[in-house]
Structure formats: structure tokens, C-alpha cells
């Protein structure tokens, strides 16, 4: 680390290099920290988590009982031990609460004044955070599995919704209209995701084993369908042409730069695709256990040098290196199935929620103090020195003042 710092100071290295190396080191040392904890509000399993993109301070979670909770992740107390408090909840006593389980929640990408939640009670609600009342309710004919708002769109404010109906509906936030429909799938849509690179590209995953990529500006069908054999008809049986997986496809995630798309399916495989051409990069992750009948929320790290994928696998979270497919580690800590996970890019922390009603925060293990420091601190107030997080230590004022 000191080597990187001096190289950056001297101008030998790009400043980005230090940041990437340190982020990667931190992600590799993720583990449960007894000092960091999230308030337990949900009485049932947690289905979905979202951290807002603007500040990374507030986290939304949606539960199987229809309850939505907002947590404050920032630690302004000067103590090391911190519980992320719930700022407000839409509980069972609220008039507007969802009747059945909430499947997806997402903050409005530009500020935390609004968030959107969709649930198995066949509605999608757009909430005002201040008053916790829905500003708009969209009703559908089938259970809503997943919805997504484009994180970068400036020209449109469309929400893509995946329901039990094979048609993907695009709801417009500005006008409230829902006439734009994307047809092409043959079974229920389990997951939808906008590309973080282009604001008109949408990827959808369905129970008919296909993943289609759409350009919403075009009137005709999808741009292309992902094919796991890359057009090589000899490998598949003749029915399995053009399928992304040999089973239902239930998870979709773009990498941070939008160049690659990851998909997981009930055939226990995870595949990495080039998002521009739709080509299967054939990275072999091995068996990624997947028994989910609904959407699986998994996430990719951002800002590290070999990127990592965090996939919930049963009651633990598997961490794979993105491009080599090697299993780095399994994060064990939940008591029951893990349903969702979300990565906080600024602090390199992972938040996971599961059926055991807990949200666990995986924090990079703090560096062990150096040998030199230890002997010095033995003379000074030893307890003080090592218990304060080095980030909060006062390194500027001099002792002589």
C-alpha cells in the first residue's frame, strides 16, 4: 500500500491504480463484522434490497410481508459499533401497504425523494418518500416479478415491468401511460434490466429459457436473443436452439460498465455474455446452485481490478472472479436462504438479505496494525489507539500544538 501511495505521489502510477488495488484488496477480505449490523424490522423474509445511487447513504428493503423499510447506512457516531437504523417504514398498519410480498424495490435514480416498488399483489406503486404515500399505482393482470428504472436515462423515464404475462410492459413515469409493450417471449418474465451504458437497451429474462435484448426505440422485435452455444447447432439438441440456459433464466445483471451481462438459470449455471454482440464468452463458473422460482438478485462489484460476482447460493453467498470463473470464497452467515444482495461501491461493502429476516452487512476486514505501531501503542493508551477505525484517526494535527 505504501508503495502504491509513493508511486502515485511521484506520478509514476495513475491515481486510479491505487484505488483499484485497494478496492480489490478490500473485497477479497469481506467478512462479517460484529460491529456493523442492520436493524431488524422485517418479520418475514427479505426479498429485495436497493442502495441509492446518489450518495450511497440510504437503503431500501422489501419483504415477503409487503413491508418496505428505509435504512440509513452512514455512521456519524464516532463509535465503531454501529447499527444501521431504520429511518422509516411502510408497515402493515399503513393504508397503502402492499397486500402481498414485495418483489422488487428501486430508488428513483436521481434523488431519494421517490422510490418504486412492485409486488405479488399485481400492483406497482410509485411512492413519495416524504409522506410515504403512493403517488401513482400501476395495476397489472399477473404477479409482478421484477421492474427496473434505467439508471442513466435522461430522455425517457420508462419503467420496464416483468410479470407472469409474456409481454414486457413499459410504464412511463411522466405521463402514466402503459401502452408500450415488448412482445417476443413465450413464458413469464422473471427479470428485466436496463443497460447502464445505453439508455435505450433493455435485457429481459424469461421462464422459457431465453434472454432477449431490446432497443426500445425500435418498433420491431428484439435486437437479439442470447444463445448459449453461440450459433453452434451441433452442441444442442434441436429444441434447445437460441436458449440462454437449459432451464428458466431467473437472474440478470449487467457489469458496472455495461459491457457484459451475467445470467443465471435453474440449470445451475451462470453465463457471461458480451452485451454488444450477444456472444457467450464461455467462462465456466461451475455449478452455481439455483433453485429460486422467482427472480434472483445478484450483483457485481464496481471499481476493482478483477471484478467479482456475488451470487446467493442456498444459505451462503458465492464470490466468483468475473472473467476467470474461479470461486474466490463462500460467505457464510445466514441461517436460511439468501434472496438478494447489493454491493456498496464506495465502501466495498456487501449487504445481503434472506429468508431468515436478517440483512447482514459484510465489511472488509480492517487492516491489522503494523508491528511498529503496536510497540508504540503499548506505551500510550493502547485501547484507544487500536479500537478507533484508522479512517477516523486524526492524522493532521500535530502533537506539539
Amino acid at each position, binding site marked *: 500500500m505504501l508503495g502504491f501511495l509513493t508511486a502515485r505521489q511521484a506520478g509514476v502510477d495513475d491515481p486510479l491504480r491505487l484505488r483499484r488495488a485497494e478496492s480489490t484488496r478490500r473485497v477479497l477480505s469481506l467478512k462479517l463484522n460484529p460491529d456493523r449490523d442492520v436493524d431488524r424490522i422485517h418479520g418475514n423474509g427479505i426479498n429485495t434490497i436497493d442502495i441509492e445511487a446518489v450518495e450511497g447513504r440510504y437503503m431500501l428493503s422489501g419483504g415477503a410481508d409487503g413491508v418496505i423499510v428505509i435504512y440509513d447506512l452512514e455512521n456519524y457516531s464516532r463509535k465503531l459499533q454501529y447499527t444501521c437504523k431504520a429511518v422509516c417504514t411502510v408497515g402493515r398498519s399503513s393504508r397503502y401497504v402492499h397486500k402481498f410480498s414485495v418483489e422488487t424495490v428501486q430508488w428513483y435514480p436521481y434523488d431519494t425523494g421517490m422510490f418504486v416498488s412492485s409486488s405479488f399483489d399485481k400492483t406497482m406503486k410509485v411512492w413519495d418518500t416524504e409522506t410515504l404515500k403512493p403517488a401513482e399505482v400501476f395495476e397489472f393482470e399477473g404477479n409482478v416479478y421484477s421492474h427496473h428504472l434505467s439508471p442513466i436515462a435522461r430522455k425517457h423515464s420508462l419503467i420496464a415491468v416483468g410479470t407472469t404475462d409474456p409481454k414486457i410492459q413499459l410504464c412511463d413515469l411522466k405521463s402514466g401511460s402503459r401502452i408500450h409493450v415488448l412482445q417476443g417471449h413465450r413464458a413469464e418474465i422473471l427479470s428485466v434490466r436496463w443497460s447502464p451504458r445505453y439508455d435505450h437497451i433493455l435485457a429481459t429474462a424469461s421462464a422459457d429459457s431465453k434472454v432477449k435484448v431490446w432497443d426500445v426505440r425500435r418498433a420491431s422485435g428484439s435486437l437479439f436473443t442470447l444463445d448459449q452455444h453461440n450459433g453452434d447447432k451441433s452442441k444442442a439438441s434441436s429444441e434447445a436452439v437460441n436458449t440462454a440456459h437449459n432451464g428458466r433464466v431467473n437472474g440478470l445483471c449487467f457489469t458496472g460498465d455495461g459491457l457484459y451481462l451475467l445470467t443465471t438459470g435453474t440449470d445451475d449455471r451462470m453465463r457471461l455474455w458480451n452485451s454488444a454482440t450477444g456472444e457467450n464468452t464461455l467462462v465456466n463458473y461451475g455449478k452455481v446452485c439455483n433453485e429460486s422460482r422467482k427472480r434472483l438478485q445478484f450483483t457485481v462489484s464496481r471499481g476493482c481490478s478483477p471484478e467479482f460476482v456475488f451470487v446467493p447460493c442456498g444459505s451462503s453467498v458465492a464470490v466468483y472472479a468475473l472473467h476467470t*470463473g474461479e470461486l474466490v470464497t463462500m460467505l457464510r452467515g445466514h441461517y436460511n436462504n439468501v434472496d438478494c444482495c447489493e454491493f456498496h461501491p464506495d465502501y466495498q461493502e456487501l449487504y445481503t438479505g434472506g429468508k431468515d429476516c436478517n440483512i447482514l452487512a459484510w465489511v472488509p476486514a480492517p487492516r491489522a496494525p503494523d508491528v511498529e505501531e503496536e510497540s508504540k501503542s503499548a506505551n500510550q493508551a493502547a485501547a484507544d489507539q487500536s479500537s478507533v477505525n484508522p479512517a477516523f484517526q486524526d492524522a493532521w494535527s500535530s502533537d506539539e500544538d
Partner: protein
Amino acid sequence: MTLFPRKLFNDSLPQIVMKHQLYSIHNDKTLVDKELNKLREQGELLMFQLGFDADAFGLVFASDYKAKVLAGEDGRATRATVEKFLEKLPSLCTELSFSKDKMLKEFRFTDSEITQLVKSGVLTVRDAGSWWLSIPNSGKFTKYFIQGRKAVLNMVKKSKYSEVLKTELEERRTTSHVKFQMKYHIHDIVGAELVESIPTTSGTLLRFVDS
């Protein structure tokens, strides 16, 4: 490769290894896949779809395959067609299966020649009008393979806590159902992820995965 028992089949089959057995030997699956594809493009390795599992691919060296197939064809009427087929071997290495148009146009085989190839075992029927590349007389191999895999898996399942140390499993006497060497089967079940391989202080532990 040396684990493959040759005498069992009276030397009529080339040495076959499964792709997932290689995953058990090397850690990096993507690298194994890339190297195999390279060898296939160079025309040195052949890959076959063995039919009992969608993901199980068998690998045979091209030279071995040629030798064994020709040896098996000695004195049979279909020998000429098979020889012609084998001459196209380098271009065959990259394909797993063939469709009818490909056979007729690219390789210029007639219908009766295709029938002869199927009779001799080099091609097996996949669909109406398409064929898998296959190894003649490999039925016995597949049978023993599946039998042995089941037997070894049962051995692991029946152990206390459904787990057994790898070294201990290698020492165990195999029942009459298991025709291949123990190590061959261990590589197979570890690579196919039918057992979880856990590193412990007394060696690798294999635990049965209940899926």
C-alpha cells in the same frame, strides 16, 4: 489417461476421458476449456457427446481414435467408407454432430454411405437428419461408467455423515460393479460436482451433495 482400463475392452476402444474429469485435476475451468478448444482446432483431440448427460463430453486423441476404428473395421465391408470418413478427420475435430446437408454437400457422402457409417458405429442417430460423432462399441463403456459412478456415489452416501476422505475412498475395495479404477471415478464425481470437495487438515474430504 493411464487410468483408463484397456484390457477390459480387449483393446478395441481408444482411451476415453471425460471433460469434467479434467476440471477435477486443474483448478481453472475456463483455462481447461480454452486449451481443449485449441487442441480441437489443431485437429489433435476429438470431443464426443456421450448421450447420458447433456454436459458430459468424452475426449479422445485423434490418433488413438483413428487406429482403433481402423482396427475394428478390418475385414468388414464398410471399411472403405470409414476410411474416407477418417480422412476428413482434421476438419471433423471441431464438430460434435453433423446434419444431413453438411454430409451431402461438404463431405460428399451418399445416403448409402451414411447408412454404412451408422452401421459401423462411427455415427449415431440424433434426430431425423442429423447424427452425433461417436466411438464404435462405446455402449459397453457407457454402461460400465454409469454403473461405476452410481456405485462410488453410493459408497460416499452410505458413509457416516455422507462424507469420506479422498485417500480413504481410494483405499476401499471396489465391488464387482465397479469396473474402472477408483481414481477414474473419483475424478469424475468431483469434476461433475456430484460431491463437494472440502480441504481439511487431514487431506481432501468428499461430501455427498444432495441436490
